[in-house]
Every structure is written in C-alpha cells, then in structure tokens.
C-alpha cells in the first residue's frame, strides 16, 4: 500500500468486482437490515427497487472488502519487490454516500476509487489525510453507488511508531 507522498489527485484504482447472489443478500439482511425488500423476492418486486435488493450497507461493506483485499494484494507485490509498505490508518468517516440504483440479486458490481483531495495534518504530522470518491458500477455500466471516503495514510519520511 502506498504512502501519502505517492498519492496524487486524480489517481484511479479499480479494486475488483463482486456478484450479489440472492443468498448473500438475504444473509446480510437477516443479520443487519431485515426489511422485506432485502429478504424476499416477492416483497422486493413490489417495492420501489423492483426486485430482491441488497441492503445499502451490504453494498458499502463489500466495497470496503474489495478495497482492503486489493490493497493487501498490492502490499504483497511491494514487499516482494523489497519496497517499504505503508499500513493504512483508520478513517474518521465519510460524506455524500449515495445508493443511486438498487443492487438486485445477480448483479455484478465493479468498484473503483479516485483520489479527490490530499492534505497534511499539523496535529498528526506522521499522517496525511486523503479523500477518495469510491464508486460502484453494475454489469450494464450504470453507476449504482458512490461515496466520498476519508482516510489517514502514513507519510513516508515522518512516521515513527506512535
């Protein structure tokens, strides 16, 4: 994973795809969001979604899963090349999350991440703060999901262990 100094506005990364099967949609919903349109095909058809739809939190959690998995894949490659690997810091939150179109059973969503802003923090000089627009596109090329994520990235030359 990259250090703050390696990040530039406009950098874009495809992080992978995920197929939301009916079983996965129902399993997540049963645990966290058991509204009928997330649990039952018939209820989904009668809803605004027009079919069994994934919980928005399921879509967001899968986006995180692919971001982390892709980051770990890149980190392994960096380590194999003998490069220093940056460990992500935590996130203070996000803004402007939009569930633009329903994610229905069988849909395959491809997620990507594009850097929008970068800044350093005087309070935490060992960290930089990055905002990225993370998006999901379905198999028809329609934008279905978008949010503006914020995260801490370690700075390359100013990062003693806290």
């Amino acid at each position, binding site marked *: 994973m990259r250090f703050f100094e390696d990040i530039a506005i406009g950098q874009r990364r495809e992080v992978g795809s995920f197929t939301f099967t009916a079983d996965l949609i129902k399993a997540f919903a049963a645990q*966290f969001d058991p509204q009928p*349109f997330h649990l039952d095909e018939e209820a989904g058809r009668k809803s605004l979604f027009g079919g069994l739809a994934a919980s928005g939190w399921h879509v967001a959690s899968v986006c995180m899963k692919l971001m982390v998995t892709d980051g770990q894949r890149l980190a392994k490659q960096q380590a194999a090349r003998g490069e220093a690997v940056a460990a992500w810091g935590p996130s203070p939150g996000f803004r402007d999350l*939009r569930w633009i179109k329903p994610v229905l059973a069988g849909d395959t969503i491809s997620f990507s991440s594009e850097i929008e802003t970068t800044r350093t923090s005087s309070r935490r000089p060992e960290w930089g703060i990055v905002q990225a627009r993370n998006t999901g596109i379905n198999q028809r090329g329609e934008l279905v999901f978008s949010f503006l994520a914020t995260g801490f990235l370690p700075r390359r030359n100013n990062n003693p262990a806290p």
Partner: protein
Amino acid sequence: MAAVRPQGTSHAGRQVEIAANNGHNQASFAAIPTMTLTFEDFPPGHFGSFGPRHVTREEILAFAAEFDPQPMHLDEVAASKTMLRGLSGSGWHLCSIMMRMMFDAFIGRTASLGSPGVNEVRWLSPLRPGDDLTLDVEVVEARVSRSRPETGIVTMKALVRNAAGQDLCEMVSPILVSRRDATAAAELAG
C-alpha cells in the same frame, strides 16, 4: 436479557412503546400492536433512545474477516500497534449494527421505502469488544417529496454511544417514508 426502554413520543404526543432488541434473532415486535408508522409520526425533534446492544469480540472478528480484514480489526497484537491502540470493530460493522438497532427500534414497523443515501458518517471513537451500545435518534428534517407527493423524506441524525457515554459514531441520513393517506390506500387495496 433484552433491556426494554419504553420510549419516545410520537405524533399528537401519543406515547409509543418501542422495544429495543438486544440480540439478532429475537422477535422484536411480539408485544407491539400492528401499527405502522408513517411520515406523520416523524416530526422534527428527539425521536427516541434505544438499546443497549451488546457487541461481542466474536462478531467483531467475523465481520472483519468477511468485509474489512485489516489487522486493527482482526488481531489484538497488531491492533495494539495502530492509531486505535487495540482491537476495534470495523466502522462499516458499526454502521450495520446501527442499521439493525434502528430496524428493531422503529424501521421494522415503519412504512419505509428505503434510503437514497447517507449525508455524513463520523467515526468518533473505536468500537470495542464487549461494548454495550445505545442509540439516540433525532429527526432533523421532515418534508414531503416534490417529485413523489405521496412520500415523505425524513432526515435523521443517529448517535451511538458506548456504556461510558463516549460518542462512537454519528450518522445523518434521509429515509423515504409513505404518508399516512398513501399507506391507508395501499392497505385498503390489499
């Protein structure tokens, strides 16, 4: 074991009993009359306080393994060396738990049509194994949709705290809720 906190006022000052569900699979509505909450039941102001919801180490690890496999969410030793200084739950797990707490508290019996998104989430302090979460919900805005006049848009601010009263996460999010007349018409139509 389910702590039930009698809760909240609704439209016309009527007292509404809202059961907080302590676990995942308990039937939450057995004691509640089948009254559907509609747009009119969400006037601006404090809506209710719910919980507690206990969070175990096992569920933190299970969610992280599936959705957020970073060391700070999976491994005590690795987590102790991170900014969060100890094992913490994924922020997405906390959001998902908040969703479930809101479902158990009221969304499960609301004429909800889903949500278009989330204005903002702030992760303020880490979720820790063993936390007992309480949730405060405030309606910050309630308005009728211009494009769908049979539907209202209720914007809520939800704040989850641990047992020590520390703020863990604040979420501002709109949900779409049918208006009472539209709900009654749909029920008549079967």
